[in-house]
């Protein structure tokens, strides 16, 4: 199992050829109170770096991009009832969707946890 991060503050946790995707804890702090998440339909093909979901906070809508390419195999239905899960557990229960990776080599271009932490601190 490995977790990787993007410069747009998404994370993907990979188990076998399945990646679970969400936004980072840093991102949820920046977004503020999440009130709605628009998730991709199961079966949709996502391309790395392209729009995959939309997260709405009280104040604004923000795009979430696919950290890697693949087919959506599950969306987190819990977020429909309780979008605040994104604030409570951005990198655990507040995950957005799962996809089957079509190009695992894309993971090599993403940051590991230590590199992401340094990236966020560098932005502050």
């Amino acid at each position: 199992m490995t977790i990787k991060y993007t410069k747009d503050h998404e994370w993907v946790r990979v188990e076998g050829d399945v990646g679970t995707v969400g936004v980072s804890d840093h991102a949820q702090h920046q977004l503020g109170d999440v009130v709605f998440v628009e998730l991709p339909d199961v079966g949709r093909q996502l391309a790395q770096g392209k729009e995959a979901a939309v997260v709405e906070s009280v104040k604004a809508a923000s795009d979430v991009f696919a950290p890697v390419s693949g087919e959506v195999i599950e969306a987190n239905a819990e977020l429909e009832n309780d979008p605040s899960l994104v604030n409570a557990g951005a990198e655990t229960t507040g995950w957005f969707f799962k996809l089957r990776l079509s190009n695992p080599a894309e993971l090599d271009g993403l940051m590991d946890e230590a590199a992401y932490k340094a990236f966020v601190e560098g932005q502050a």
Partner: protein
Amino acid sequence: MNEASESLKTTPLHSLHLELKGKMVPFAGYDMPVQYPLGILKEHQHTRAKAGLFDVSHMGQVRLTGEDPAAALESLVPGDIKGLARGRMRYTLFLNEQGGILDDLMVTNAGDHLFLVVNAARKDHDVAHMRERLKGRAEVELLDDLALMALQGPEAAAVLGRFIPEAATMKFMSYLPATFDGIPVIITRSGYTGEDGYEISCDKSDAETIARALLAEDEVEAIGLGARDSLRLEAGLCLYGHDIDETTTPVEAGLEWALSKRRREEGGFPGYAIIKDQLANGAPRRRVGLQPEGRQPAREHTDVCDADGQKIGEVTSGGFGPTASAPVAMGYVDRAHAAVGTPVQLMVRGKPLAAKVAAMPFVPQRYYRG
């Protein structure tokens, strides 16, 4: 600090905002707190449950003097200013010759002068407009040495009453010069959240002392611009530059209540012919409340379509209403679709979101009626 923020103006409470860890953003040329660590949702809920303190010092406070400043001002606004009793205030609008709204403002009869509060982004325009149009009839003074705070919420009267006992029994939309722990202030029982509350005007050198004293009360939290926006949206109140501007008339905006009876009959304000016609025959479009189904918000500039997908209007303010616990929006639609209950579609990111025209306010207004 980058170059952009260095050029921003600050209010007398700026260092307090930083101390309270306010998240600062540029707004109307000022560096202002959009939220504090509590977050917009909780700040909003706190204001509706107890009391919130807002820094609104960026807004313009203006003194109008002259032989008959009320008569002079009536040449620019449709409100009954001459009929305002001493110590009373009302909401009115600067209009252009097409009946378009140049700004919305509060006007108080302060006895020997009129006291105006205008929008931050419009204050320079408003002052220039009045100086040009009221030349020889009234003197216009922008009161740059004053700060302005709003204390809003159901506990506001109890809190302010501890410092200014006579505040608790003031009438809604009235004005009172008073002292706050010995500091001279002007208070009005008004605000823009839909809650009971006050605006407190004081010398800028006294603002921090007053703010700290109010924040030390258990019921009071500092509230940023984010919650101010969601509160006023739920209350169905217009935001200048979004819900009203130079292209919207008071009739289109549903602000007929700001067109005083005598003035509707007598006229004598800019755009009167157009407004009179719209009052009699209806305006081509109307500002309405919009209630999406489900939890997805529709933001400003979202297209509003009818059941067949034809565009009939646009959202001018939209978001999530923490008290309504639902998405709330307002916008303009063609008059044929303006009735409450009319089904519409909001085109959010290209996809239709089912909604209906809704009555406003989205939460009941709770102004103090005595």
